[in-house]
């Protein structure tokens, strides 16, 4: 059952390798390989399904040859699916970590993500207001923005835990769920109030117009089709991969990570071992929050505009992704996020050609996929179906 499980950890046989090799294998090769497998696997499966559909319904609308359309859109769909998928995955990690440790759904996490995106905006906006935006080195700029929003969101998550969840430790499971919803309402309006007062507006547009390297699409050639890819998509994917690798190392390769897992499983006993349980829980919230923050600022850069309401939909999607992958399981969050992102992109791309359905059915189909998967794998894609030992 749930608890922070091993995540991207390499199989235990790597114990036998020499330490340096093992480190590279455990914390670089294996997780990167795993991400590649997930991406390629999901993309290939979906592509095949799409062409299968095209074979069944070759011409869903007059003059539209489905297979041709799919070929034309394929690279675009995959890229957009992956970039949003990584965002879902990063948010999902926050849900999964907290769920793993405290067994409750941190409904306020979507607002931690939102705060991250707003903080990202504030930093960029301030730099832009000081007139120096163009002078920044792109890498330094992005890293600064992401790191600061990670820090703020992480600390916010810690604060939330301290105020709204810690006093409820040991209360029935659903109680912190409600205070999380309270926090969520509060944060939305609070951010809105602050922005409305200081900026007289709460639609917050990243000053990306000033950064051509960030907004000018790169034309990629895939066979005969050209796809315009926003540089931000690369940044999202790159940022997500880096932070995910860091998380994997943290949870599986460090003592603190092991401590978090121990606390997740049995707080009392962890305390008996000398582990400061409250500190570990704060740390978990910090890490989860920081991931939400990173996702928020990357997402903000990618979409350009954020509002205090921006957290809700990605929040729900990411929560779905966490469950799809197997809640409490770190690799599961990654797989769930990527799967969901790609499924959505493909559905959006294909449903358009079916006049009776259309993109408005995307969510219905996406949820149906989720339900189907859960019926056959009741603990999510990667949740181990351990028979409970009694």
């Amino acid at each position, binding site marked *: 059952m749930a608890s922070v499980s091993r995540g991207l950890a390499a199989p235990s046989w790597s114990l036998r390798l020499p330490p340096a090799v093992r480190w590279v294998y455990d914390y670089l090769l294996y997780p990167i390989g795993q991400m590649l497998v997930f991406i390629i696997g999901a993309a290939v499966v979906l592509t095949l399904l799409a062409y299968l559909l095209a074979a069944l319904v070759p011409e869903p609308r007059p003059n539209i040859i489905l297979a041709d359309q799919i070929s034309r859109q394929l690279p675009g769909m995959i890229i957009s699916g992956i970039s949003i998928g990584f965002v879902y995955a990063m948010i999902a990690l926050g849900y999964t970590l907290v769920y793993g440790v405290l067994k409750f759904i941190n409904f306020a996490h979507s607002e931690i993500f939102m705060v991250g995106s707003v903080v990202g905006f504030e930093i960029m906006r301030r730099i832009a207001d000081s007139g120096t935006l163009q002078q920044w080195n792109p890498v330094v700029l992005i890293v600064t923005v992401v790191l600061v929003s990670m820090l703020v969101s992480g600390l916010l998550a810690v604060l939330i835990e301290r105020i709204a969840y810690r006093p409820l430790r040991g209360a029935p499971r659903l109680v912190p769920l409600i205070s999380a919803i309270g926090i969520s309402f509060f944060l939305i309006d609070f951010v809105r109030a602050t922005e409305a007062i200081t900026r007289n507006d709460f639609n917050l547009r990243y000053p990306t117009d000033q950064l051509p390297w960030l907004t000018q699409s790169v034309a990629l050639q895939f066979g005969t089709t050209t796809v315009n890819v926003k540089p931000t998509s690369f940044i999202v994917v790159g940022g997500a991969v880096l932070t995910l690798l860091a998380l994997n190392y943290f949870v599986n390769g460090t003592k603190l990570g092991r401590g978090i897992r*121990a606390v997740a*499983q049995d707080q009392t*006993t962890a*305390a*008996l071992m000398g582990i*400061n*349980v409250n500190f570990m829980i704060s740390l978990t919230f910090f890490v989860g929050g920081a991931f939400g923050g990173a996702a928020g600022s990357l997402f903000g850069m990618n979409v350009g505009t954020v509002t205090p309401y921006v957290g809700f939909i990605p929040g729900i999607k990411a929560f779905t992704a966490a469950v799809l992958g197997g809640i409490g399981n770190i690799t599961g969050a990654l797989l769930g996020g990527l799967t969901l992102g790609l499924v959505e992109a493909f559905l959006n791309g294909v449903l358009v050609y079916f006049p009776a359905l259309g993109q408005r059915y995307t969510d219905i189909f996406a949820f149906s996929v989720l339900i189907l998967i859960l019926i056959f794998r009741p603990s999510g894609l990667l949740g181990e179906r351990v028979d409970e030992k009694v």
Partner: protein
Amino acid sequence: MATLLELKNLHTYYGQIHALKGIDLTVNEGEIVTLVGANGAGKSTTLRTISGIVRARSGQVLFNGQDVTQMQPHDIARMGIGHVPEGRRIFPQLTVHENLEIGAWNVKSKKDIEERIEHVFQLFPRLKERITQLGGTLSGGEQQMLAIGRALMAMPRVLLLDEPSMGLAPVLVEGIFEIIQRINEQGTTILLVEQNALMALEVAQRGYVLQTGKVVLHAPARDLLADEAVRKAYLGAH
């Protein structure tokens, strides 16, 4: 002999339930002391109060002369009190190896940790066979071994053992008591709670008899073994 652990007039409650009603008890450095008593007498509660996972409402726990009554459990653990809790409480999703590593939470040196793990494997070879198995899937007895091994990883000055032989196969029960003695000889002071009072008293120097939250008798182990009332009540003799 120096007093290592001292409980003074300890009162503990579970909500309305008054579980400890003024316990006084001392454990000297290097001793094995055992607590004997019927179900619900408060033996486990005594151990839990010492290690801080249940808080005393009044009274004191002194460890090495220092008042630890109001300290957090993890700080108490760091001071050198190890606790093998009732019901083992293995981390089910950590491997055997990781469970042991967690036991050495406050040990800095990796080398020390590996050495101690080796030491535990010498005591319990069965665990070595299961080194990568998840704790939750071990059998009851395997878990018990792991729980003791895990507590030993911190090399505590005093070890609180709550029913270490529960659920163990007879052949292992003997082994456990041998190990307890061995650990003790290596310098660890032990406070032992056992249903198997006969064997506990055989290895212990002194014993306390608890009855509904109070110490009713306190004597050298040998005397308790000989005491007719104790034999009748707790040793299953006729």
